[in-house]
Structures are given as C-alpha cells and as structure tokens.
C-alpha cells in the first residue's frame, strides 16, 4: 500500500493499471483527458504492459474494445459527454453481446450550449444501454471501483459491461490523498479473465449475431436476469474488496446518519460528500437528517427504496440532470421505487453545466423538504441556486 496525492483521474488510472487490462483503446476528451494521458505515462514508463490503441473517435474506441473483448481479453476505455453520446451505438452492441468491458465516464454536460464542465446528463442519457452504472464520490472510490468493476463485469453469472461514473472536474481534477493497493493484493482479488464468450479456433462460434423475433426477447430476458445477479455481485465484490483492503463502499448504496432521521436526501457522486458535511452540521443543531448515497444506478436498488415505507417523513432527491418535459432523472427512479410510501417527496435540480453546489444550497434542500413535510411545499420539483 502506497499513499499518494492524486487527482481523481490519476487515481482511476491507477485502478486501471492494477487491473492489468491487455488493451486500452481511448480517444481524449475533457475532462477525461488526464486519465488516458496517465495510462499512456504508465505504458511509456514500462509500469503497465497493455497495448495502447489510439483510435480516431469514441465510436471506434468502443468498437476496438469490443473486438478485444471478443478475443477474450480484458480491455479498458474512458470518455465523457459528447464522446459518450457518439459511442452510444457501440454500448448497446457490447452489452447485448455480453462483453465485460469496463469504462470510466468523466461526467460532463452535453451540448448545446457547449459546456465542458460537470453534470450527469451524459451518463443518464445512456440509462437504457444495458450497462451497469456505478457512481463514485472520491478519487479513492474511483480507483477501488474500477478494480471492483472488473470483478463484477467478468463474473460468469453477470457478463455485463460496467460504466464507472466520476464527476467531471469536481472529482477528475481534484487532488486528494489516495491509498494505492499493492499489485499482489489486487491480483489475489482479480484473477485473469477466463471467458467462453470469445472467438476460439477450437470452439468456433458466432458472436454479435442477428437474432430475429423467435429468440430476441429471450435474450433480453437473460440480460434482465443477469442484472439481478449483478446486484448480488456488486455487494459481494465490495465486501470482498473491503476484507482485503479495509475499504468498502456499502455495495449498492450507503445510508449516512439515517438511523433516526426524519428527512433524507438521496444523492449520487461528489455532491454526496458535500451533503455529508451538511448532515453533520445540521445534526449538531439537533435536526434529524440523513443522506442516502446511491452507488449503483443500474441495477437500481429498487428493493431498498420499496422497503422504506414510512421510515422517513420526507425524501428529497438531488439531481445533476433533468429529463425535459418531466423531472430529474434520478428522482423519477426513486419515486417510482417508493410507490405507495407515505413519505413526502421533493426533487432538487442543481449543479448543471458545472455550477457549484455550495453547502448553503444543500441546507436549503433540507429546509424545503421540511416545509414540504409540514404541508407548505414550494413545488415538487425545484431548480435551486438560479438567477431566474
């Protein structure tokens, strides 16, 4: 174990290095660039022996990754925003053909208007791509989650690609103290990939084939079932990682100071960290507030939310995203899973296009939620910290 002062992107790159992919194929895009540059540094310094394919676009980055995975080898790529959107077609190919590719998405706003800063609209636009989608809160969690992601993706019961989401700039370009686990430890945790889902002269088969109406739906049913197994694997992979390294992230989601809470905020990514500070502040004032940090968006922790019943009087959902014509993307998911719960609910749209989410705004969320619980709702969905 070595301690280092690293950016989120550098930390994630260490996670990739320690996972020993055979190939990295990537195309640079802000704010992902320093991650793939760091991987190139590792390669140049002889600290990693993967083949580095410099492709001409994100679509090709994922197409090349699919080719590698079809040969039964471990592969990594990373992108962001427009790059992810351009890659979209290939995401469905990879998930449908059940290739356990791991990718980091440095979450960034989508154009127009052009904006290179952080929000989560790029990832949520890929909600139905058939990928496991994990969100992390720190550089350390990015490093650890990339390693866990291969364990999850490559489990024979799962075989689903994983997208590890890292907030653009807020995490990718922020430095903090990171523990880098030893290679030997990671090797114990993550054995080399063994898959039968590959092109093999001794066992010829067709991959990425055409499937007509007669079997297509059955394939989709298998994908849906695999997501149930993925949920178990996300929990198990995190637990085993914690046993080895001392660091775990509570599997699918984490409750922070929710024991006797009346009001709970649901958040994902870096804003969860800011919300922890606010929870501590408000708890010191005697207010019964807590935080639910969603780590896995797909599979969604449906059973947890369905089981909440009347445990909280109010549940607020923090969205760095909006589905125009409806509401915050995360809010729709949480509210649907909580169908029938008597809890009052509210949705806060914040942090779009890199707008900071100050602690005062998180305090305002708890205040608005309390008002809603007391019957003085200012509206179910609110944009906070706006000019107009």
């Amino acid at each position: 174990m070595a301690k280092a002062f690293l950016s989120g992107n550098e930390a994630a790159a260490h996670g990739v290095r320690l996972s020993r992919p055979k190939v990295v194929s990537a195309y640079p895009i802000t704010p992902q660039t320093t991650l793939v540059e760091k991987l190139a540094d590792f390669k140049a310094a002889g600290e990693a022996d993967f083949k580095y394919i410099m492709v001409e676009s994100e679509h090709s980055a994922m197409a090349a990754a699919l080719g590698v995975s079809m040969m039964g080898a471990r592969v990594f790529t990373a992108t962001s925003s427009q790059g992810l959107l351009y890659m979209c077609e290939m995401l469905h190919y990879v998930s449908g053909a059940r290739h356990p590719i791991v990718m980091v998405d440095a979450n960034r706003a989508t154009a127009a208007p052009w904006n290179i800063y952080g929000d989560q609209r790029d990832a949520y636009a890929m909600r139905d791509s058939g990928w496991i989608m994990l969100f992390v809160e720190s550089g350390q969690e990015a490093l650890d989650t990339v390693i866990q992601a291969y364990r999850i993706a490559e489990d024979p019961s799962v075989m689903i690609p994983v997208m590890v989401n890292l907030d653009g700039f807020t995490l990718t370009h922020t430095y903090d103290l990171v523990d880098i686990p030893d290679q030997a430890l990671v090797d114990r945790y993550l054995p080399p990939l063994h898959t039968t889902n590959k092109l093999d002269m001794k066992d010829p088969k067709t991959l990425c084939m055409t499937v007509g109406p007669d079997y297509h739906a059955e394939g989709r049913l298998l994908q849906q079932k695999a997501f149930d197994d993925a949920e178990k694997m996300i929990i198990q992979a995190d637990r085993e990682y914690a046993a080895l390294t001392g660091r775990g992230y509570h599997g699918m989601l984490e409750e922070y100071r929710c024991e006797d809470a009346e009001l709970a905020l649901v958040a994902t990514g870096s804003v969860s960290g800011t919300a922890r500070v606010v929870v501590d502040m408000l708890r010191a004032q005697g207010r019964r507030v807590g935080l639910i940090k969603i780590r896995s968006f797909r599979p969604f922790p449906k059973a947890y939310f369905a089981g909440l019943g009347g445990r909280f009087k109010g549940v607020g959902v923090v969205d760095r995203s909006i589905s125009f014509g409806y509401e915050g993307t995360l809010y729709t998911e949480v509210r649907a899973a909580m169908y029938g719960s008597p809890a009052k609910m509210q949705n806060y749209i914040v942090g779009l296009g890199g707008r900071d989410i100050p602690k005062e705004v998180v305090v305002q969320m708890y205040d608005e939620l309390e008002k809603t619980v007391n019957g003085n709702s200012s509206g179910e969905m609110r944009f906070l910290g706006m000019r107009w």
Partner: protein
Amino acid sequence: MLEVRWHGRGGNGAFTAAKLLGHAVSIHEGKYAQAFPSFGPERRGAPVLAFTRISGEPITDHSQVYSCDCIVVLDETLCDVVDVAGGLKEDGVLLLNTQLSGEAARKRYQFENVKNLVVLDATKIALDVLGSAIVNTVMLGAAAKAAGLVSLDSVERAVDEMMSPALREKNKRAIEMAYGMAEGGAQA
C-alpha cells in the same frame, strides 16, 4: 479546516503551489488535503485560481472555497482586476508579491480591512535564486510560515517528490529564503 486560495495568471504555477502544499501536509504531516484549480480551460496569462484545503479529518466537501484562512497573490497586477481579498476571514492572512511596503500596498489596493498583510518581493528572490520570475514556490515558502500552514521540512520533501531533479535544489533555496523572511517579519 484551513482553506487557502491562490491567485495567479495561467503559467505562474499557482496550481503547482496548491498541489505542493496539499502533498506536503497529507503525505508528510499525517493530515488530509484537497487541491484543485479553477475548473476549465487553461489559458496562459489569464487570471486563474487554485485552492488547497487542509484538515485533520478526511475531507469530503466538494463545494468551492468561499471563505479563506490564507490568500496568496503571485502576481500583483491581479489586484486591479480581481477582488483578491474577497472572502478572507477576519484573522486570515493575505500574502502579496510586491515591491511596495505593507503600508503602501494597503493604500494602493484598499486592503484596509486586511488585518494580516504580508508583503515580499518574491519576484526578486525568484530572479536571484531561480533565474526566472516564477514565484510560486517562493510564495509557498512565505505562506507556509506566515499562515502556519506546513513545516519547512515537509514543503522541501514535497519539492523533492514532485519537481524534476534540475529544479529541486534551487527551489528549496528560494523556499528557505522566503520562509526566513516571513519569519523575520515581512509582515506589514
């Protein structure tokens, strides 16, 4: 929690100073630190910000820094275009690279409300010791002492670990000189 804001122009090395400080306290003093630049495209010569947070506890706050215990201004010309003293806490320290005396700087830049102002001609030190007008490490040395951010030894170890071999010795010399000046009462 100590919060430090660095003012520079693109190319001054403000973010390098922010990272050196974060590295020094987190790797060598058993504390936790966070360092980040003003997010976005990097443009040489444009006003830029960098930040360092230091705490005895893990730092999970990912909001921006709004109030500061220490503000370090690498380039004096920024005082005319940016509110460099904005958000400084009452007991906070502002360090300014200038040839002016403390009294003259206070008047010239309307720092009347800045209780702890430290002025030093960092450019001169940089030219003398480094042979170029790059003042980030000089100002780090002064801030380390004046605001009690980190020990000289930890900063020097961070320089050894983060800077290229050719730059290490002279930067450590510049840091020692600035640290000594802040100790000897560069304060205005």
